[in-house]
């Protein structure tokens, strides 16, 4: 290799140090929040004078927090299912289709990734005002689906591109109808891609805040919105506890996604 880590000499230590500093820079705020959520001080003093679980008790005793978490989970799961189903159908057309304008259509599907989220949010808010969808569950789902779908399409298209269409042809000659072949051979063949798409779609919805703030009503808000609004009213360690749980679920799902990818490469 042109740049062999082992042959860098003194640079090796410099590079390692830069990496460590970068990792700390990225992780410290999160570790800080986690520590504060277990700290006994009401005023978020660091380092915490003592340790306690009372902020978690307060969190779980408050039906508004539980409601927000359940709303987040419900929206996340619906977005996940729709994103994978629509992403699969779109990917089938983009990868296996032979119609004109596929490249343009693909680029079009991916635009929500590059558009500033706040612009999408304002546009959706204006549109939903007419449709009466602001502050409703379908409104949340559509908004999050728009940002989750490009990731699902990228992941599933990627899996489908590496899956040889001859395998599907082989299944058809074996006697499976084209739909049976897709269901029994192609889908299981790209299941790693489908799982990854599901996890990322859920996570995108789970910790999305900009669109959610626009969509939220006092009666219906997601966990990140609840964190944000609470933060504006009073600075309580309950927020740290809620944030810690948010991060925990994200980390767990990221690990699952990594394991799926590892399982695929083996």
């Amino acid at each position, binding site marked *: 290799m042109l740049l062999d880590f082992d042959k860098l000499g003194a640079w090796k230590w410099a590079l390692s140090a830069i990496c460590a500093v970068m990792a700390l820079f990225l992780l410290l705020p999160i570790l800080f929040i986690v520590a504060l959520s277990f700290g006994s001080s009401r005023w978020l003093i660091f380092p915490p004078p003592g340790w306690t679980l009372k902020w978690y008790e307060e969190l779980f005793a408050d039906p508004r927090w539980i409601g927000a978490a359940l709303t987040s989970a419900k929206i996340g799961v619906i977005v996940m299912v729709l994103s994978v189903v629509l992403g699969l159908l779109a990917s089938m057309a983009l990868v296996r289709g032979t119609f004109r304008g596929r490249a343009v259509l693909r680029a079009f599907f991916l635009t929500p990734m590059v558009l500033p989220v706040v612009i999408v949010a304002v546009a959706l808010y204006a549109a939903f005002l007419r449709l009466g969808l602001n502050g409703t569950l379908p409104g949340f789902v559509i908004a999050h689906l728009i940002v989750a779908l490009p990731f699902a399409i990228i992941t599933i298209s990627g899996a489908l591109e590496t899956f*040889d269409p001859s*395998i599907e042809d082989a299944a058809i000659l074996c*006697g*499976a109808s*084209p739909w049976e072949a897709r269901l029994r051979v192609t889908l299981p*063949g790209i299941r790693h891609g489908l799982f990854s798409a599901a996890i990322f779609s859920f996570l995108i919805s789970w910790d999305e805040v900009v669109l959610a703030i626009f969509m939220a009503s006092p009666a219906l808000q997601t966990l990140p919105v609840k964190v944000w609004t609470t933060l504006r009213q009073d600075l309580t360690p309950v927020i740290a506890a809620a944030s810690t749980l948010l991060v925990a679920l994200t980390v767990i799902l990221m690990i699952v996604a990594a394991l799926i990818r590892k399982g695929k490469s083996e």
Partner: protein
Amino acid sequence: MTTPFLHINGIRKTYGDVVATDHVELSIAEGEFMTFLGPSGSGKSTTLYILAGFQDPTAGDIRLRGQSILRTPSHKRNIGMVFQRYTLFPHLSVGENVAFPLRVRRMGQAEVAAKVKRALSLVRLDGFEDRMPARMSGGQQQRVALARALVYDPPVLLMDEPLSALDKKLREEIQFEIRRIHQETGVTILYVTHDQEEALRLSDRIAIFNRGKIEQVGTGPELYANPATHFVADFIGDSAFLSGRLASLKGGRAAIRFEGGQQIVDVPLHGAGQEGQAADLMLRPERMELTPEAGPAGASLPVTVQDITFLGNCTSVAARTDWGDALTVRLNFGHPLAGRVARGDRLNVRWSPEAAHAFVRG
């Protein structure tokens, strides 16, 4: 005339202005091993894919036991196929891969197990049921694919260059297996390849494809001894072609005159031509002989040695005619000339009369 088992009747396939196959006409007997041989883009794979039902012909018909199969969708044709690429279902074990066609046919569990066992035994992979495809070599995967294609006893098995991804030694080993399996099962096989050696080794008959058409159909020895066209003569065997002009014609035999006035007489002529037209004289390498002294007039030519290569069991001598056409003659190990011939030597090449063919230049 009795109805042929499989009849490919005037198949034509065009993509816009491009003609992929043009009036392909072929009858295949039950149990026959028929190979489609030709360069890439010659229409052999297209014909196979039309048989499989993945493509529809622009014109023509395909009849199996007298019944057209073109209206039957691929999955109901009951045809077996082994592909060029590895097509085992990656998420299923070897046993489940082979069982797949039977499960799709809703066959009972006990019967499935028995048939899978027999099919794996046929390709000599007994006991591999639980292995995952990713943990097998390319050769093993293609053998499983073969078992999967045969497990439901299809009347016809299509094979689309199934060995092209394997190395030479493994290829020969599996060619031998395919021959054995053909003999044991008696299944009718249509085999596509661009490898003449593979075609000669496996087939009962070979159809030579060129530019979407079948140039000639016959057994290996027939094609080698009596090539109908320049293309067939060139594609099977490493022949030399010497360019000249037709000097005289009589009853399908001709004399050819080369630049400088030398003339070769009484060779079978393929293709219609008239005096003065450009024509090639084809000579098979193993029928040519190098001698220091001049051969009989009209069936020998003087040449100049260009290069000598020792190849173990033979020595290959590259030589040039006086008008510049190249030809290669093999001297078997121990040939009196083998150790003595040198670059620049003037020698004579002669041949037995039945080894020469003349082809009118198209």
